[in-house]
């Protein structure tokens, strides 16, 4: 994939967050962001501020659980963790994602 960095498509952010927390770690927002950035080799532009509404929405939906804790640097931080409901959501979202990617690929025409 060459030619500059990719803009984030709607709904994709949530997908990325879910993927990030899939392994069961507890992370605060900045950690989630950094993880996404590094695992995509900086190819995606994320408006950092948009991450938080996404996190809160998913928390409200019950996909994520959150609690306040103390970070290794000694700061108070809000930590997020995937719930079992969130895990179910990943399964659904992955199916949708696969179809989405396939559809885009077909339109782009090899």
């Amino acid at each position: 994939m060459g030619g500059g960095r990719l803009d984030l498509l709607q709904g994709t952010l949530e997908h990325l967050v879910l993927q990030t927390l899939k392994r069961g770690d507890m992370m605060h927002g900045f950690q989630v962001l950094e993880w996404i950035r590094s695992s995509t080799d900086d190819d995606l532009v994320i408006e950092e501020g948009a991450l938080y509404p996404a996190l809160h929405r998913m928390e409200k939906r019950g996909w994520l659980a959150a609690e306040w804790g103390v970070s290794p640097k000694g700061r108070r931080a809000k930590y997020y963790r995937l719930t079992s409901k969130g895990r179910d959501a990943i399964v659904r979202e992955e199916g949708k994602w696969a179809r989405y990617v396939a559809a885009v690929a077909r339109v782009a025409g090899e």
Partner: protein
Amino acid sequence: MPRPPEGPRKLLPRMQPGPKQAADLEIQHHLEERIDQLVSDGMSRDAARREAERSFGEIERVERELRTIASGAAFRAAVATALETFRQDLSYAARVLRRSRGFSALAVLTLALGIGTNTGLFTVVDSVLFRPLEIPKADRVVQIRERYSGSGPARFMSAPNFFDYLERGEAFRYLAPLSHTWFFQETSAGVDTVHVLMTTDQLLPLLAAEPVIGRGLTESDGAADAPLVAVISHAFWVERFGADADVVGRTLRMLDARRQAVPERTIVGVLPPEFTLPPVRDPIRWQARSAWGSEVPLELGASTAPDVLVPPPAAWRSEVNRGARRIHTVLGRLEDGWSVKQTEDVLSAVASGITATHLEVSGPESVEVTPLPRLIRDSYGRAFYLLWAGCGVVLLVACVNLASLLIARGLTREREMAVRASLGASRTRLFRQLTTEAFVLGAVGGLAAIPVAHGVTRGLVALFPGDVYRIATAAVDLRALGFLTMASAFAAVAFGVVPALRGGEVVGRGRLGEWLRHGSRSRLGVLRALVVGEVALTLTLVVSGGLILRSYLSLTNTDVGFEPEGLVHFWVGGRPGSGAFSKYEEGSQRAGVDILRRQLLERIEALPDVVSVAEGMPPLSGAASDWSHTLADRPPLAADARVVFDTRRAGPGYFATLGIPLREGRYLDEADEELSLRTWGSWGELRQRPELSQADVTLPAVVNETLARRYWPGESAIGKGVYSGSVEVGDESEGSNSSSIVWDRRNPPFTVVGVVGDVKTVGLDREPEPTFYSMGWGHSYLARVRGDPQLASEAIRREVESFDPALTVGGALPMEQRIADIAAEERFRMLVIVAAAALALMLAAVGLSAVVAYSVNQRRHEIGVRISLGAKRAEVLSLVGWQAVKLVSLGAAIGLALVAGLSRLLGSFLYGVAATDPLTFLGSLVLLGSVCVLASYLPARHAARVDPMEVLKTE
């Protein structure tokens, strides 16, 4: 792949950020992490901060977004909390109500009865009165009635008059006469009646009904030479013709009242299954039973669902019938753009024309046009609204009663409330708690009311006397349940909120101790006010019940003018199909009358159970027949020359058998009968003789006192001449303006030979009408019997059947039974109101008892002290009793004022007793007073037994 980050350490609870700072803190944390990262990459701290904020985006917008997300959650959380609180209140309320089972059961029972009866009445009233009529544009359908001078709308209309209105009927799209008669049919089960409606082609389009098979009546069906046709009802088609699709063209055979075959008719059409006549119930409801008087021993049961429609005979148009009112009801559908008033004006002009042209009959003065919806309201509204009002008052009394019970009970729960308040329950929380209890009671009461409503509806439908339009369709449905829900909510608010407000007032924490000692004075005040209200409401019901009871008694004990005890009415006819009756009607009918009246009546009179027997029409049979007459001694143009009498047949011995007293002159006897039958029998020939003078052929007649007094006041009626039917006005002396009545020889003239006492002929609550008795042919008999009227009737039947096996007896009905039937609606109304009053009285007693018990409880200390200081039991009793007396007196005073205000309304339901009848008021007061004394005596006696030592110890 980056390595997974380190997890968090636990945060101490007190370090948890509050909901407002949390979003802010989270964003700050992000920025700090980013700054740290940038600084460690070698950026200056200031540049790093700027870069961090830039890459974060619009901080304020994000914050706003987070707040929006949070508030949605907050709303949901609030709802969840409220639901949880409600659930808690609910389970607490259920627990409390379960704990005091007696009270809860009483409350639920009272509510179920109160709400259930009201819903039941609503259900019936809804189906009878509230639901729109099935007829399209029913408000354009009207009833037309003539008014004669000095009286209300006339019962019936003469057919020639009707056709005059029809001719000038530009105000109407359709105008149709309705006249009911009864025929019979032989079926496998015996003889069944056939309800025949004589009407014209306009009735079906008027009601927007179309035949499902064949055609309706046409205008030509009414012509003199037209073949005889009939349109049958759907039910009749299914029942008697097996729903034969080829019924058109088949023959309808019927028998008349004497079981003689009437001319056959050809069926031309079948009505739709839903066809019914509009529920026109004449103000004189006995109209419906008038058929009985004309010897068809039937109640006009399903008067709205005729079996057969036939055109009226062509003779209806004949001028001979101008004076005979044969049409029972006239219905019209107004033409677009015509108002009721305009129509009345046009028809009244026609009426004046009739009066001016046809001097031989009593002419109508004006015409009244009544839209159908109003007619139904007038007919049935009264019957139900009074009952409904009675049940409504019972529900109110029940609510007041429950409120006072709740308060009285709440007072005993004050300790609980106070403790809860001192533990931090807020005022609103306590209020909510008490309201929840009330609503739980209301809801359970409402649920329990559903079967009650169902039962009441079924009971009303089954027991309501007479034929009430659409009452059979009444069933507890969604509308009724909606009403029930509203009534339950109303009841819960009515009895629950005031006590809850009072309960919410529970004293603050600091005053707990004081409050536990003294309770709340103001609550006692509310309680007293409730008792006063309850007594007032109850008294209105008791007085109304008393008045209606007295009205019923005076109605049934009213002087009917004859002696109903031991009087039996019956008629004699041929057995179905035997054809035997014709031998009694051969020739001029004299032979038959001779045989039946002389031989048969002699044999019946010889029966040991029979005192006497006579031919004639039974009294209280409804308006038998209104006929025009002319008074011979008046100038022909005099306003009162043309009169309408209720004209009845009376054979020899009729008055003596019925016990109708003679006022003047003489009764009719066998010689009169002989003369009458001979004259009528050969009248066709007699009237042709030119030399015939009036005196030769005049027939004897008897009139009642009302007639004699009204038309010959201050002089004797004996010897006065009366012409029956029509007469002509002629000029006797040439050149003079005076004209006189010319006897037209159409009927023999009558001479009054006797005046008898008034008899209630139409209804118990009707004033006697001018009644004219003469002889004629008929086979309706009245017998005065000894002992059980049923046994005597059986003996008469056996005698008739042994006299001629082809004959039989019909309609044997004791007159006392007849009177009971007529008063059935009044009796029903009386029973319901009296039951409502008794229920209210019971509730009031319970309420008063509870209040006195509470007030005694409050004054235990005082009473204890008094007793220890030597007060006697009687003094304590009177101390407590005096209070009850004051409350009841105040309530009674208000109640009396209420009844006085309602007296005009109530007066229209009363007969023979004034709405302000002092005896009833006094009796009601005494009854209410004694119940109240009893209700307060028991708790007061309890007070007198207070043990002073025990009371003082608890201080």
